[in-house]
């Protein structure tokens, strides 16, 4: 973001979505984790689409994180991600940290810790 704070933007946000502000699906949340399905980018995909697919090929990221990595507005990233989910290039994935995997029952975090994390997340959301 260093350059954008220095001066006026060169490329406006509407160029990323071709002026579309409404995501094709209203169920997508900015904290949902998405990951690439492995389908290669189609010819109609813009450079932003291709960058999102290649960023998410390495592993799952939330929509907000994806937006931050690519220095896009979250709402713009939501539109793009929902387009890519429609095309089958991305899928929403429930984040499954190793601690929560069924096999790792031994060092599973305590219920209190999980509740604390949950309330922390809620506080963040309300904020």
């Amino acid at each position, binding site marked *: 973001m260093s350059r954008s704070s220095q001066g006026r933007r*060169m490329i406006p*946000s509407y160029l990323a979505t071709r002026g579309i502000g409404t995501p094709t699906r209203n169920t997508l949340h900015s904290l949902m984790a998405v990951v690439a399905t492995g389908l290669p980018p189609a010819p109609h995909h813009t450079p932003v689409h291709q960058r999102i697919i290649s960023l998410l090929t390495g592993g799952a990221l939330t929509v907000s994180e994806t937006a931050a990595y690519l220095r896009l*507005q979250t709402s713009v990233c939501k539109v793009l991600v929902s387009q890519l989910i429609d095309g089958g290039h991305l899928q929403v994935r429930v984040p499954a940290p190793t601690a929560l995997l069924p096999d790792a029952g031994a060092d599973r975090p305590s219920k209190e810790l999980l509740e604390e994390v949950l309330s922390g997340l809620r506080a963040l959301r309300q904020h």
Partner: protein
Amino acid sequence: MTSIPETAAVMLGATTAAGAVATALLARSRRALVARSTVQSEALNASQKREQALQDQIQQFGDELQHLVANRLPGLALNLVSAHHPIPGLKHEALAGTVYAPLYEAVLGHYSDTVAKERRRIDASARAALRGACQDIQALSYRLQTQVEGLQSDFDDPRLLDSLFKVDHLNEQAIRLVQKAAIVCGAWPGHVRPDTYVVEIVSGASSRLHGYERIKISSRLLDSNLAVVGRAAEPIAVALTELMANALEHSRDDLAVEAGLIQTGNGSVCVIIDDAGTGMSAEAVRRGVRLLSVEEQQDTLLTELGDPPALGLAAIGRLVADHGFQVSIDQVSPYNGVRAVLTIPPHLLTTIDEEKEPISAMAPLPAAPPAAPQWPTPAGPDRTPDDGSDLPQRHRRARTEPARSDAPDVAPRELNPETARDTWSQFQAGLAAGLAPNDSKEDQ
């Protein structure tokens, strides 16, 4: 004593002699008189001729003056508006060699000088007025842009975002129009940018236009971190916008405009804009080249740019003269439209550290360098050594699955019709129960 007859004879003789003398004298004087009168009549004739000649000359001057006022000056006035109109010459060719001819020409010279001087003065004041107005509007539009950008990042309501994107794009188009007009009127482009990636400039330039979806940008730059130095970034963006605008305007709505970036061998970067439009007539090309040439910048008047004025090429011409990049529009695209090429010379190029300042996600991706085709080398155990006796054979290429290390290893589920049916009927029953009004609860 003398006799009378003698006397009479003498008298007669004397008289006769006297008469003869008198006759001779008379004849002489008459000759003289005739000669004098001839001379006088000749002189009279000559003076009459002179008078006639003078009369003719005065008539000629009058005619010439009449011709000057009625035909030549209006003709010159028309010629100053458009060079297609001829200026009539002298009416009386006889005047051509005299000392008066330069005087008539001087009248025409003074007239055209005065008109040209006055025209330049009026043009300069029109420029100043337009420049002032445009710069004010431009500054306000930039402030509006800042506000809209703030709103875009603060609110993510989709409907609001749709409208904000529209407002932003309309504002961007308005900025383009006033910025172009201001530049033609002698203003600077409006703001200085930091060093900017070339690909970002091309994308940014396309975003300022209505119909930017039709512009297909492809980058064939070898160094993706190539950038334009700050002072030339905005001027080059404006010039590219105008070239793309011309391409979009002169091609049909369903045809794409191709913008390609290449890095030439001598270190400059070329942006090539091809359209599939109608192309330009030879006269339009000449006019365009004249507007773009560096030498013509002082002589281009606002009033010569048409009504409404075609400002695009004139603006590019100003920027080219001020910043030292090159633009050519006299080539034909592969689709018989116009190929416009903007060349950024090495002294306007620089590089940016991509780690520190990553390139925008919306900029075109660098093209993969052309690689030699990789043929699969099947190394089967039954493969006979190539001794030249076998014909080459086609083998099916093995499909390569992308390695997915992060995906959890989940065994594929067995597909069983009964299980699937049970699952879906349970799902449906649950859904129905959830959707039904809570009668059971209220009954309890």
